[in-house]
């Protein structure tokens, strides 16, 4: 048992923290508020690509660093700490990782080096209107075609869809699920932007009898497994992002209350304030431990369904409580848009709800227990 980081892990973490903390500033983030510009800092993205940080979990044969999911999660934690305007979760976790795991070799060789070099941005479509189960698509249907498959239907709120060159899409094909890499420039693809709480770019993607060539099929049938695998990793990625964001919000509130004086003393000296922050500290420690556990199990390729549900329950509860408490102890300053904390509140709530809030994961865990699974060893 080892809760420490290896030398390589510490290096990845330090490099990510250095680049992100230097490059992401409240002034730069302000440029994206209210969708004034697409929330995508391409200069920062280029730096992360050049430093290899987007590719830590990618095999060296495709231009990656050849580490694993733990190292990538450490980068995501730093992205959360700075709420960096880059598509790390979508490109690296929801798209590159499942492609590397499941795509035919020829497809991997065609897209992964391009994704690693930054000439191809990837994302994944995980939701449909009224259907949050990414592994059981109903709104997008595929039909067999001599050259591949044809897709019709709508995927809703696909992150960075308009910026991406290709989207991982699951579609219902007869009784099964087909997963493809959809090129966004294909005939019949249209997009309409939707607005999200975080100002992160999203678009509804409408597919009108779009032909996806056979070479772009990741899995013709049984694609549920691909989607399940990628949703698990994306969920863990959200937990890691949440950890960084919550930790930053807590430390900001601790500093602010230590400086801010009322009744002639720092407000941090009031026990009611100190104790609220202590509760944040405990919540975040729980999120850290459950997230690292889920990430390290997924990294090792073993079943982590129970541990991942538990991590996401904490990401939801901790996100809610920390976002609320840190805003609260700041008083009006916390909601003032000239002070950076309010954006963290948006992200903490985003990560709380995305891919299922606490109740969803409690229900899933409860069902597993009812089936006699997930007990203590």
């Amino acid at each position, binding site marked *: *048992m*080892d809760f420490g980081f290896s030398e390589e892990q510490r290096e990845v973490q330090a490099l990510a923290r250095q680049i992100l903390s230097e490059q992401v500033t409240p002034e730069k983030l302000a440029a994206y508020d209210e969708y004034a510009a697409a929330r995508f800092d391409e200069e920062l993205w280029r730096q992360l690509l050049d430093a290899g940080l987007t590719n830590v979990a990618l095999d060296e044969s495709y231009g990656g660093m050849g580490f694993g999911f733990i190292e990538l999660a450490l980068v995501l934690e730093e992205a959360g700490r700075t709420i960096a305007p880059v598509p790390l979760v979508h490109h690296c976790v929801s798209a590159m990782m499942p492609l590397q795991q499941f795509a035919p070799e020829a497809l991997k060789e065609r897209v992964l080096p391009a994704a690693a070099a930054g000439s191809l941005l990837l994302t994944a479509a995980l939701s449909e209107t009224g259907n949050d189960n990414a592994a059981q698509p109903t709104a997008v249907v595929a039909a067999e075609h001599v050259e591949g498959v044809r897709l019709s239907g709508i995927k809703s709120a696909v992150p960075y869809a308009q910026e991406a060159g290709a989207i991982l899409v699951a579609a219902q094909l007869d009784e099964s699920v087909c997963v493809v890499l959809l090129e966004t420039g294909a005939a019949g693809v249209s997009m309409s932007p939707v607005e999200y709480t975080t100002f992160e770019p999203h678009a509804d993607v409408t597919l009108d009898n779009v032909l996806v060539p056979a070479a772009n099929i990741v899995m013709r049938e049984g694609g549920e497994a691909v989607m399940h695998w990628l949703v698990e990793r994306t969920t863990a990625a959200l937990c890691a992002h949440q950890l960084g964001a919550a930790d930053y919000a807590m430390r900001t509130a601790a500093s602010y209350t230590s400086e801010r004086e009322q009744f002639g003393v720092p407000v941090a000296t009031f026990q009611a304030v100190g104790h609220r922050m202590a509760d944040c500290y405990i919540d975040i420690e729980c999120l850290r431990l459950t997230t690292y556990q889920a990430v390290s199990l997924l990294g090792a390729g073993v079943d982590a369904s129970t541990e991942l549900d538990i991590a996401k329950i904490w990401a939801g509860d901790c996100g809610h409580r920390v976002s609320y408490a840190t805003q609260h102890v700041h008083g009006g300053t916390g909601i003032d848009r000239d002070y950076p904390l309010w954006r963290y509140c948006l992200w903490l709530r985003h990560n709380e709800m995305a891919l299922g809030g606490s109740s969803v994961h409690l229900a899933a865990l409860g069902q597993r227990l009812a089936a006699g699974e997930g*007990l203590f060893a």
Partner: protein
Amino acid sequence: MDIQFNAEQLALRDELRAYFAAMMTPELREECERDMGEGGGPLWREALRQMGKDGWIGVGWPEAWGGRGMSPLEQFIFVEEVMRAGYPFPFLTTESVGPILAEHGNEFIKREFVPKILAGEMLISIGYSEPGAGTDLASLKTSAVRDGDDWVINGQKMWTSLAHFCDYTWLACRTDPDAPKKHKGITMFLVPNSDPGWSCTPVTTLGGVRTNATFYDNIRVSDDYRVGELNSGWKLVTSQLNRERLSLINFGPSSLLFNEVVKWARTTALPKGGYVIDQPWVQQNLARCRADIECMKLIVYKQSWAMTEQTLDMADASAAKVFGSEAFIEVYRLLGEILGQSALRRDDEHGDALGRKIERLYRTSSIITFGGGTNEIQRDIISAAGLWMPRAAR
């Protein structure tokens, strides 16, 4: 990073689980039940001595202290398993005071006390609180006055749990009444509970557990019984309390209880068909407990690892205490809801002791949010030591 036990640690766990399954005879179990899960009976003592003979008590202690030289993680596995087996292990002596004596004791203490602790032949109660010194522990008044080569001790302690069957009390005494800061005038002693000047009266608690008021009337001990430097006892007190706080959070028994309740809910039929566990609210309660106990487990694993790495952090020890103590109470409540009316019964309705166990745990767990230092003080420590926030003047 690898948050799982390695093969050797899993093998040790299995070995211990089998060892304790054999040790916990029905007679021993009955005696422990009778003693309200505190121990102190003859079979309990015999089992403790046997654990000592078999080299388990100090499995994670350094060899120089007489242990087996494994790490605190192995020590932790041992304590989890012994508690999981339902044996009321005297962890305050072995996990909390014992290591302090081994580290800071003089040659006499290291010779006379430490080996006996490891042999399961020495039990030590803790004398800190007084009628007028609870959370403000440093205002304690029990005095030790130098008289030639000896010390003469007078005073009263409160909540001296287990003292009625312990051999010595680890006693915090005022040795400098004029110290400008009151915590700088405290020295630690080991005082024999067999001394004619020592007496105790029982205090019965909500949980049914006995604790004690203890009285110290002109007890004379030689300087050999002093631990640590004169007037430097406070750091031994806080260091012991850090260890005590960790020892208070045993997830082993809770994880076993949780598994038992799941099994009960899966096999107990509802009057109108189906099983208890088919109800969504039951699944919700169980999932909440599963998530809380998992965190308890990870927190104590991490702390044991940090002890091995010698990076144990004060804020993290306090966080473990606050989270664990509050989560225990919540877990007992949620499990009790599932058991329903039988969680109100002190007898054994289902013949599996489950309702009775939860009735007692939910009742006795009231102690843990203030025992070992109130959670308010722990939260003060967390915000100050963990987040560098200034503290109010007291």
